[in-house]
């Protein structure tokens, strides 16, 4: 292809860059110049991750043909800091914890710069409008807006009070996030940024049919294309199935495709364009078969089977064996108490059915992985994952390798939310790397994300509740149907864990809960932040508002009367030691009472939610370095800042600063084994083991120091990289001295903690346009029971992000299918995430005190509970504002107007 030479100024330096006419400015920056701080999130100008300053204006570099940049002055994120001194905007993002995964951060910082260059003192509304082209899936924007306000003040030369970042690495302090500086400067390397010598690029051949038999696959024409190195189909791979729960999914379709987008073949070529072109030239002959797209239809006898001729599947990563009943891959029913009798004696019975749409994790970073062959016949994989050890297990299983020959390095994840647990991209790149003997990179396009990731399952939830006239809840029946898609993935667990929570955080003496996960000819659904719970809580909390109406009661009073109180048991089995749920509830209801929704078509909605935080056996590795500083290694990927919290607990225990502690995760060859990062389990479990490890390490050092100082270990204390006598701190031995002759380090494993439990109460105030059904979110309040906030800034980050994701699920987000089973949404333009302009500041109330048994200061998980009731709260607000109930989420303008 003919090249031309582009002349432009990038970050103040004149550059001449050979480009092809097909290059965009984004390609030039990332692929030609290695400026990978500029991110690719969608390729269509919808996400803003690729924002750069182009002659002073914020633009999407993915939409600018390279040649149009001739003579331009371009500033990328790499050009903002002055050496190692951060630009005030970058510094403010660090100080205000205005970043989480960091993938949108470079674009966000530059969009903020474009604003502040023009408007030195912007209002909150101006900031939100200026940032509306930069999608952030993690933060909910509240801390970003604060960071921009802070940066504006700094740039105006105003003197601020002390920054929020304290120096002490103590528990309870808003310590700066590990890796924050790399993220605001664009130096964080994500999997899709990796560039290895001789690296090839991969593309997938996908099914255009929801259900078809593969009659033949012809690859000759594709292989003949210059630059194509390998094409693999199922015939080239071991006939192995794997999956999170059960082993029902092949990595490439065997004989049959089960959804539009199903993986049929995979190509490696010298560049991404060639790989895509080759994928197009792979000729697959299909015999289309009848497909079943609706979960209710699929559950009926006689509908087309997704896995015909199969009775069940053996266990996968979590060892759950499936026994199939038609398309039902999982069924469960639990009964507690005399439900029928309770319904018979009830004054009021309400019976309603609620539906939720499939919704996407929609991380701004798409799935990406790089694999490189190793000399020993094995493979090394760098990937964006929440579950590196499951990736190792999956790749080993799919390719028939021992785990010793599969090394997985978890790169920084650019957003995950459960979407980066399942194993599908890594086996493909690993197989191609082994086949070609070269490194191979694969990055999903936004459309592939929509068609072949693992979104939240659509559900149909029937709820029947019996109550006394005074509002006392007597009994409940729930029937929970989840659309699993073509494979089981996580959906049986969605059903199982949802059925446990069917009471809601209330006293319901009698319960019958049944549910099923059902195969359909659609993409398989998987874990997404609190799998099952936003859907279930939407049903239960809509139901509570309706029940109140039927009883003629105030919905807040109905809740207050039935909420779990001190001394009562949660479904997780914990017994409440305080009135924590009532404290959360009172905090929120008081805020509502202070701001009544008096305007027409305006209302508050409230919902209560809960989450069980599981315990797992946890490991950590701690060692003292030669100079006395400490290294911590854990096997849990850092999704939410959990690594910072874990390190904070260790630093606090050892009396050292964050700069005196290196914390790392995770390389499956060297890190201690850990389960997937998800379910709000990491901080709860890992701070427990890390603190225990730090204690043991401190004890060992005290023992050594006691010998040296001729004292007892109990007379010693650690402080400032020294062990000293409590009574006479002038007598001390440095950590360095204590390890000079004998290294000190431990690997510690603690047995599984019991599960713990967390509550959240959300309230949302909306106004609804009576002419159009458009909704404006005016206020949103979150109260969260977190036990102990190790790092309050990060807890707030989870609260803000969790609530805003729920607003998206309630109002805008829906994956739709056409009649043929094809995803109808085209990119982020049709799958609409909340922008900064759509949501208000999230008001956070951290409620501490109901601590867990974690030695991590009694902390509990926050990511999931902070999300659970948001959809329901917003839905209740909308329904209150219009005075009618909507039984299906999202509550689109059309559904609102039609209600």
């Amino acid at each position, binding site marked *: 292809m003919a090249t031309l030479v582009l002349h432009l100024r990038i970050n103040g330096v004149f550059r001449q860059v050979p480009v092809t006419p097909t290059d965009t400015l984004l390609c030039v920056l990332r692929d030609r110049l290695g400026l990978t701080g500029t991110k690719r999130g969608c390729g*269509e100008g*919808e996400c803003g991750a690729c924002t750069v300053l182009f002659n002073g204006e*914020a633009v999407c570099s993915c939409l600018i*043909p390279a040649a149009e940049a001739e003579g331009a002055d371009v500033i990328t994120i790499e050009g903002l800091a002055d050496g190692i001194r951060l630009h005030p905007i970058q510094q403010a993002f660090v100080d205000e914890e205005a970043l989480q995964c960091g993938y949108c951060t470079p674009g966000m910082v530059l969009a903020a710069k474009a604003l502040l260059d023009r408007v030195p003192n912007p209002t909150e509304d101006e900031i939100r409008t200026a940032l*509306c*082209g930069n999608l952030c899936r993690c933060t909910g924007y509240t801390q970003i807006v604060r960071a921009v306000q802070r940066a504006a003040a700094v740039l105006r030369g105003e003197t601020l009070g002390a920054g929020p970042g304290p120096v002490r690495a103590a528990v309870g302090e808003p310590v700066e996030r590990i890796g924050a500086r790399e993220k605001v400067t664009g130096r964080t390397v994500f999997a899709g940024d990796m560039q290895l010598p001789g690296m090839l690029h991969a593309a997938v051949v996908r099914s255009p049919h929801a259900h078809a038999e593969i009659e033949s696959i012809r690859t000759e024409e594709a292989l003949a294309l210059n630059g194509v190195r390998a094409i693999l189909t199922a015939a080239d791979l071991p006939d192995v199935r794997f999956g999170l729960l059960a082993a029902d999914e092949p990595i490439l379709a065997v004989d049959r495709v089960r959804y539009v987008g199903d993986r049929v073949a995979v190509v490696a070529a010298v560049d991404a364009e060639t790989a895509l072109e080759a994928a197009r030239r792979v000729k697959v002959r299909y015999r289309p078969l009848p497909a079943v797209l609706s979960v209710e239809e699929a559950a009926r006898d006689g509908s087309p089977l997704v896995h015909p001729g199969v009775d069940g599947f053996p266990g996968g990563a979590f060892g759950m064996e499936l026994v199939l009943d038609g398309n039902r891959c999982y069924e469960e029913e639990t009964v507690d108490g005399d439900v029928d009798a309770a319904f018979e004696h009830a004054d009021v019975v309400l019976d309603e059915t609620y539906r939720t749409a499939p919704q996407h994790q929609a991380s701004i970073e798409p799935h990406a992985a790089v694999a490189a062959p190793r000399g020993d016949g094995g493979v090394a994989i760098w990937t964006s994952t929440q579950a590196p050890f499951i990736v190792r297990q999956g790749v080993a299983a799919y390719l028939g390798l021992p785990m010793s020959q599969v090394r997985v390095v978890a790169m920084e994840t650019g957003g995950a939310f459960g979407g980066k647990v399942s194993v599908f991209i890594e086996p493909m790149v690993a197989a191609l790397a082994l086949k070609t003997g070269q490194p191979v990179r694969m990055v999903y396009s936004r459309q592939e994300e929509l068609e072949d990731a693992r979104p939240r399952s659509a559900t149909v939830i029937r709820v029947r509740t019996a109550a006394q006239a005074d509002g006392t809840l007597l009994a409940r029946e729930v029937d929970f149907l989840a659309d699993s898609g073509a494979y089981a993935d996580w959906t049986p667990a969605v059903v199982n864990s949802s059925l446990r929570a069917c009471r809601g955080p209330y006293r319901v003496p009698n319960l019958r809960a049944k549910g099923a996960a059902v195969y359909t000819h659609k993409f398989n659904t998987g874990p997404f932040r609190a799998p099952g719970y936003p859907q279930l809580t939407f049903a239960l909390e809509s139901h509570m508002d309706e029940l109140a109406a039927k009883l003629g009661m105030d919905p807040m009073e109905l809740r207050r009367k039935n909420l779990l109180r001190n001394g009562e048991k949660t479904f997780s089995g914990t017994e409440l030691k305080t009135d924590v749920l009532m404290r959360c509830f009172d905090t929120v209801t008081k805020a509502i009472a202070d701001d009544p929704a008096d305007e027409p078509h305006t209302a508050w909605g409230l919902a209560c939610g809960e989450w069980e935080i599981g315990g797992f056996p946890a490991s950590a590795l701690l060692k003292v370095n030669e100079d006395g500083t400490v290294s911590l290694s854990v096997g849990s990927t850092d999704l939410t800042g959990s690594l910072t919290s874990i390190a904070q607990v260790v630093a606090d225990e050892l009396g050292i600063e964050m700069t005196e502690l290196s914390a790392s995760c995770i390389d499956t060859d060297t890190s201690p084994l850990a389960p997937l990062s998800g379910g709000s389990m990491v901080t709860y479990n890992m701070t427990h083991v890390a603190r225990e490890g730090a204690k043991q390490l401190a004890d060992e050092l005290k023992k050594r120091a006691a010998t040296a100082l001729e004292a007892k270990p109990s007379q010693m204390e650690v402080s400032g990289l020294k062990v000293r006598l409590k009574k006479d701190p002038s007598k001390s031995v440095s950590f360095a001295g204590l390890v000079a002759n004998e290294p000190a380090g431990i690997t510690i494993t603690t047995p599984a903690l019991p599960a713990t439990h967390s509550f959240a109460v959300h309230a949302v105030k909306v106004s609804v346009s009576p002419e159009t059904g458009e909704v404006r979110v005016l206020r949103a309040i979150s109260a969260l029971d977190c036990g102990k906030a190790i790092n309050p800034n990060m807890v707030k980050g989870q609260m803000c992000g969790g609530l805003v994701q729920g607003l998206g699920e309630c109002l805008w987000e829906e994956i739709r299918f056409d009649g043929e089973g094809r995803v109808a949404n085209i990119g982020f333009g049709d799958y609409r995430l909340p*922008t900064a302009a759509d949501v208000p500041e999230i008001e956070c109330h951290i409620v501490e005190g109901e601590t867990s048994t974690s030695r991590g200061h009694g902390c509990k998980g926050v990511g999931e509970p902070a999300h659970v009731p948001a959809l329901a709260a917003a839905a209740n607000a909308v329904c209150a504002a219009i005075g009618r109930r909507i039984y299906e989420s999202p509550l689109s*303008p*059309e559904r609102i*107007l039609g209600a």
Partner: protein
Amino acid sequence: MAPVELLTPTSWSEAALLLQESPETSAVLAGGTDLMSRTFMGKVSPAPRRLVSLRAIPSMGTIWRADDGSLHLHARTTLAQIAADPAVRETYPALHEACTRIGSPQIRARATLVGNVCSASPAADGAVAALCFGGTAEVVDDHSAFDVPLVSFFTGPRTTCLKPGQIVRALRFPPPSPRSGSAFRRVGTRRAMDCAAVILAASVALDAAGRIESAEIALGSVAPTPIRVTEAETRLLGQAPLPAGFAEAARIASATCDPISDIRASAEYRRQVVRGVLPLVLQQAAERAMAAERQGS
């Protein structure tokens, strides 16, 4: 496939000639936001193999007024430039509002109004606003220049009356009458970055007696192209600017538009919104007209 050839002619006639050489697979590149994203998403078929950039063609300005008071917007004038222009805001508020609401700041910094109009998307906010001001497209080809009124510019979804080698050089809007006002409203889901389910724009001029002398109502996303609803406009003429009249006009508009059902909204919802929102848009336009009259007198 991405485009494979990018040319930067230095005159309109050169640009026109380049476009004529391979009309099927050539496209004009101004801001590129619509073209690039649609090409990337595989929505342009056949994908353009030749992009003819307007970047190097000398222009007489971005936003200027001719002696007759008409407003001229160049082919490369961005939405951000129009949105920031105080005179446009003052005189053509519906156009100002449309230009502030399209996409994001990043998009508006590159996207042009002419490009928005030429995209001929039924959901082109700028095209809808432009329609309600009696706009004219100044078209050039390799040897001549001529005018096409915007009302006869659109021929179908994403198609216009332009022939291969014809390029819109500028848009021109007559000066509004002194007793006129306009309003714009887009109805969708999000407040930003939203392809609207319905777009409404109206401009209303009053006579000395305060009756409606002329009315232009334009709608988007309710027909194969951005449309004017002349039947509804006619109904308003000579009437006092009162809610009953506006509601009647909205009923006619709702009945005469021709929406489809797609992922954004159903046809029925779109008609319902036209019925419910157009009266508000007309009301606001009329109020602005009255305010303009008060200011003028």
